[in-house]
């Protein structure tokens, strides 16, 4: 095959030239990484979650490094929707990649309110509903931990916009597939799987929790197998596309998520290790597809769900 394989993918109505999203809260507004990464070589930036009212966020320390990962407890620090829409969002308009807005809230009404106003903006190509932040005292994650509350949030948000709606699911649940089905039935266009895994670290000298918020969300390679399984299970439960995420650091990790059923991947903590990782993954994905004579990413999505086929059996899929 002489034509290079396509990395284009589609998440609901969101068409992306690259299947790489930058995880919410990990990539700022994009501007912070622009000196170190070519933003035209990534699919989209999921912006940091915004809430109806400003939030100061959690006390420090907000970050603790742990084996093969890190704990964070930022606490949804954001300027609030009014300031964000009036003073900030227009500055992001010139990014050479798509922008996905992220909504966090503490009531069904506020999810719908923030979603409606955010989605109405031309800078925003799609909206992610963050129903799974583990770092806001007892409230935020509640929605994503219950099928009925998740459904209520998605239904309310769905009614406000025709733009692509991605629902970010929590791994901190008994059965993620049930919640995925509810989100799909309530009108979600796609699912982001997974948010961080709850965790904690303690300073044995001071006998104090090491995070200001006491608990935090674990990310990085440490959670990758948890995330791969979640994507695998959700992929079998729903028909809508999945944005796979959780500890992706290289092309092999990315391939695991595609094979488990993700149509795109999101890179978060790995940007803290090396900002060149997203572009490197895209390049190496393309080389992988080319080596196997595959026309595009579609050819590998969910293939690990098809029994125990070996890779060479699919080499001819694209003719």
């Amino acid at each position, binding site marked *: 095959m002489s034509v290079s394989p396509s990395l284009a993918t589609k998440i609901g109505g969101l068409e992306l030239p690259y299947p790489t999203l930058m995880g919410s809260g990990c990539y700022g507004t994009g501007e912070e990484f622009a000196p170190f990464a070519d933003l035209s070589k990534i699919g989209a930036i999921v912006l940091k979650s915004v809430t109806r009212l400003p939030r100061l966020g959690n006390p*420090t320390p907000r970050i*603790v*490094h742990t084996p093969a990962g890190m704990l964070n407890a930022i606490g949804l620090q954001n300027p609030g929707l009014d300031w964000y829409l009036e003073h900030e969002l227009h500055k992001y308009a010139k990014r050479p990649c798509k922008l996905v807005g992220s909504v966090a809230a503490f009531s069904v009404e506020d999810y719908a309110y923030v979603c409606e106003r955010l989605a109405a903006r031309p800078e925003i190509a799609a909206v992610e509903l963050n129903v799974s932040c583990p770092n806001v005292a007892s409230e935020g994650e509640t929605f994503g931990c219950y099928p009925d509350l998740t459904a209520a949030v998605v239904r309310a948000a769905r009614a406000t916009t025709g733009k692509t709606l991605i629902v970010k699911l929590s791994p901190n649940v008994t059965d993620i597939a049930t919640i995925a089905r509810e989100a799909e039935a309530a009108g979600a266009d796609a699912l982001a799987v997974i948010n961080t895994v709850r965790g904690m670290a303690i300073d044995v000298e001071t006998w104090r929790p090491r995070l200001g918020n006491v608990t935090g969300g674990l990310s990085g*390679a440490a959670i990758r197998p948890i995330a791969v399984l979640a994507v695998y299970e959700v992929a079998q439960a729903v028909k809508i596309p999945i944005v796979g995420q959780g500890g992706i650091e*290289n092309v092999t990790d990315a391939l695991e998520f595609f094979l488990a059923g993700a149509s795109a991947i999101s890179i978060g903590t790995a940007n803290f290790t090396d900002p060149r990782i997203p572009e490197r993954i895209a390049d190496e994905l393309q080389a992988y597809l080319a080596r196997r004579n595959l026309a595009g990413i579609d050819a590998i999505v969910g293939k690990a769900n098809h029994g125990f086929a070996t890779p060479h059996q699919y080499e001819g899929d694209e003719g």
Partner: protein
Amino acid sequence: MPTLDLHAGVHETTVLQRRVLAPGVVLLSLDAPQLAAATQPGQYVMAIPPSGETAATALAVYEAEGKLASLLFFVTGRRTHELAELRDGDRLDVVGPLGNGFDCSGGERDVAIVAGGVGIASVLLCAQRLVRAGARVRLFYGARTAELLVDAQRFADAGCELIVTTDDGTRGESGFITDALARAQKPHIIYACGPSPMLRGVARIAMELGVRAQLSLEETFGCGVGGCWGCVVPLAGTSAQAPGFPPATLGGSDVVYARVCKEGPVFWADELRW
């Protein structure tokens, strides 16, 4: 602080020399001409772990001259241990220079630089620049013990007057370096980098003396480039504002959180909420 990091990038460097200055204290000299040219006093880099292990490490740029930029650090954990294992000729990629460092442009003629422990790594470029500008520069340098007063002679050679203390009295006076600062003749300005308790002490002394102080803060970083808001510090006052946020008063709070990695790491002591 004014924005200085105009030439930040990813630099593929080679280790020219690795020296162990004291047990657990390593100086990595890098072949990094662009980094050296772009670095301002008090700036830092994120060192990309050769193993790919999660998260780069924030390290102050110690020296920057010609093609050489160096990183001076204490081995405190897994990630610094890996960097300490690098050998001459190894490759090390770094992101930087980052952050807003020391503003050395005030023209003060009598300067005190206060460094505690590994904080010494952030102040050499500052000291060199101020000496070149003709200022009298006194370095107040404290460490736990004599052998951890690394590279002190370097500052003397650069033209600084040295005042040292050690916790155990093995060199200089026994006690905290802030006590030595409090006893000393009043400087026109103070620059400081070290552990938080030392910086608080410096801020208090500066207030009592009625001089301004620039403090280089340490906080655990996530991304190190301003993207994650993991390394914040509260700024005080109704006029305090962080990029992307309303002023404190509009936000319904009397503080705002600014990023140590982006708005800092150097802040004026009187900007901070202690």
